[in-house]
């Protein structure tokens, strides 16, 4: 019997989600880092070309005849045109007085020291500009004077480059994420693979296979497997113990009872006083009842045990039933009861032969036991490929008004059983065997109305 496990979450899904989550986080970090990096690099390279331009203008400044002269080199501005199609502004000033260039170019906030260019981002003519200002000290008429050169450029081209680089960074991030996701799926699958294969290996085992799990497993699964092995071990011990107990009990109960019954019968022959003989007869009846009941109890225990781990073999139901009929014929003869065996078809099935035998024997036993003498019992076996069926019809008067379903409950007996030794376990055993094989037990009144018809029905495979 398999009980559904109580499922809460999935290791694979959790692992996958965690891996995907960290991949997404790493991809985002990668994107932001690369973006920041390219932004810095782009700005640095823009700054350096602005500074190169400012430097070349600075180099063209000279003092001629007591005048500061600026000879703007062509390359100073054309080099900026090579980088991007951006607007270019510049200013050369001396001590706050503009010598040439765009006089309304905003002055930076930072103070400029000689040899240390200042880079600023400012607004000019409605556009954002990047401006470098560098300073140099010249000697004019023997007195030092500070010359400041500013070169500025709008940032449209810079923005276009950044947009392109951001796109590349985005593709990089997405690519990284996709690759990580593929790896995450692969690693999640491979991490749970040992678990899966262990589960398959255990569930593939035959019902009697109680060997410990010996396949190599990852170290994380070692505690689980060793617990499982301990459990299997305990189960094996416990099963062995019950089997031993059943065998022991059968031996311990049946043998003394047989001895007591023999002694009671011998005594019955010797005793002549009518009231003593009556007591002894009662005793023998009670012993018979106990013997049968203990036999059926043991049968029932055996059936319960065997159905828990059903061992299936191929069975010819007709052959099995015929054997039983032959074995019980002497008992039937004692009461002058005729056993009629009939077989149609090939009633093959797979199941536990001992259990099936037990079930059929219990029904046949009942039929013989409850029939009055000189009656007929019909045993019919049939099979059609899909089902194998055995039905036993008697002339024992039927079960009367008792609920036919209740008859198969433990210790419930029919209305016509007064005076007959019985435990009420026979039909219970038969029904449990039928159900363990996926079959059914049906109890009907026979066609002639003279008795009952009990049918065991099994699926062929």
């Amino acid at each position, binding site marked *: 019997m398999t009980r559904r496990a109580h499922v809460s979450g999935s290791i694979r899904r959790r692992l996958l989600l965690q891996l995907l989550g960290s991949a997404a986080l790493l991809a985002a970090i990668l994107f932001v880092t690369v973006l920041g990096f390219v932004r810095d690099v782009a700005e640095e390279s823009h700054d350096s070309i602005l500074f190169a331009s400012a430097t070349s203008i600075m180099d063209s400044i000279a003092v001629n005849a007591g005048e500061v002269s600026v000879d703007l080199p062509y390359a100073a501005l*054309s080099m900026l045109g*090579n980088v991007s*199609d951006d607007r*270019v502004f510049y200013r050369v000033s001396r001590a706050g007085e503009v*010598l040439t260039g765009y006089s309304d170019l905003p002055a930076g906030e930072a103070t400029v020291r000689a040899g240390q260019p200042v880079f600023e981002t400012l607004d000019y003519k409605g556009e954002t500009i990047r401006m470098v200002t560098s300073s140099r000290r010249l000697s004019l008429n023997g007195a030092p004077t500070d010359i400041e050169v500013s070169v500025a450029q709008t940032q449209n081209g810079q923005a276009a480059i950044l947009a392109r680089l951001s796109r590349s960074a985005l593709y990089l991030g997405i690519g990284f994420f996709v690759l990580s996701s593929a790896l995450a799926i692969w690693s999640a699958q491979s991490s749970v693979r040992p678990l899966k294969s262990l589960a398959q290996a255990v569930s593939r085992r035959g019902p009697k296979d109680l060997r410990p799990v010996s396949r190599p497993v990852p170290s994380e699964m070692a505690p689980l497997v060793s617990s499982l092995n301990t459990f299997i071990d305990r189960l094996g011990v416990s099963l062995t113990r019950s089997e031993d107990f059943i065998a022991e009990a059968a031996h311990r109960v049946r043998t003394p009872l047989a001895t007591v019954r023999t002694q009671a019968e011998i005594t019955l022959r010797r005793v002549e006083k009518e009231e003593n003989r009556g007591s002894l007869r009662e005793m023998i009846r009670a012993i018979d009842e106990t013997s049968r009941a203990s036999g059926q109890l043991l049968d029932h225990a055996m059936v319960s045990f065997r159905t828990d781990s059903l061992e299936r073999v191929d069975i010819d139901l007709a052959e099995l039933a015929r054997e039983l009929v032959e074995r019980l014929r002497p008992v039937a003869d004692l009461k002058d009861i005729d056993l009629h065996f009939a077989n149609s078809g090939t009633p093959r099935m797979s199941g536990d032969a001992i259990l099936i035998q037990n079930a059929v024997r219990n029904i046949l036993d009942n039929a013989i036991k409850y029939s009055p003498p000189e009656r007929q019992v019909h045993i019919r076996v049939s099979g059609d490929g899909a089902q194998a069926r055995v039905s036993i019809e008697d002339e024992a008067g039927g079960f009367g008004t008792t609920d036919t379903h209740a008859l198969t409950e433990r210790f419930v007996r029919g209305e016509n059983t007064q005076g007959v030794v019985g435990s009420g376990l026979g039909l219970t055993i038969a029904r449990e065997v039928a159900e363990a094989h996926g079959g059914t037990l049906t109890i009907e009144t026979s066609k002639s109305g003279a008795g009952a018809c009990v049918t065991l029905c099994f699926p062929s495979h």
Partner: protein
Amino acid sequence: MRNPLLSLALIASLWGVSASAFEIEDRQWVGPENARALTVISTTDFDILAPLMESFLRNRPGVAVDYVVASSSELMKAIADEGQTFDVALSSAMDLQTKLANDGFTRPHQSSATALIPGWGEWRNHVFAFSQEPASMVVSATALTEAEMPRTRQALITLLREQPDRFRGRIGTYDVSLSGLGYLFATQDARTSETYWRLMELMGGLDLQLYCCSGAMIEQVADGEIFVAYNVLGSYARARADLADRIVVIDPEDYTHLMMRSAILLNDAAQPELAEAFVDHLITAAWSNPPAPEYPFRHPLGAPGPSESARRPIQLGPGLLVYQDREKRKRFLGEWVSALRQE
């Protein structure tokens, strides 16, 4: 047309100093009267662009073009200093167009037409080139023999040195202080080779005649008044079929600068959509292959080639701003004047 002979004294007057309103050389109205007018300020002679304007107006009833011709420096003055409103400015002075775009007087434009222009033919979607024309020498076909034709600057220098008396007062070039295009050609020459200064010194000693415009120089050469005109717009000279037998147009073989005529869309345009359509029309005429039949300039326009090639297209870009720097311009004009004054 202004007087072609200008005294050297005028050289000292710098661009932008004059406070008077800008000077209009010509004003033409194309299209029906009382129509919606697109105002164009241009350095290009009306006759040259008239066919393109007519094809522009063909499918636009109720639209006219108010076409104002001014020199490139007057154009700059009108827009930058006087705040005159025009829809479109067409100019051959690439440096001034670039400066107007850089200093925020223009607005960007992008269309299927502008997509035709390669990267070197436009600047930041603000300046759109629509022609490429050489700075040529125009030589009198009657005064000089075939063997004397100067194919390079060096050949011209040799010719002038050998026969100074023959050429005294018979050579001309742009007055760079007045003509924006002349200034552009002169600065690019000076940037390219020292030969330019030697040539200027030599010409200065031979009573160099100074002109405002290419047209005047071409006519003077054709009339035999002067024998050699230096740095003339070759496209104008070649366009004068009526003078073809009297002038020879030479693109110097040492190097020939190629100027790109360009269009800019001005801020505060009264007819912004019309202005864009007109610029697109010019661009499509120029850059389509083949060009529009009424396109008046040489085709195709060539990319800046390898430096060993004689053809040197002047590149659009912030480098052009350098010679527009106040100090740089003052210094250049000072050197130019002193070169011409030298004996």
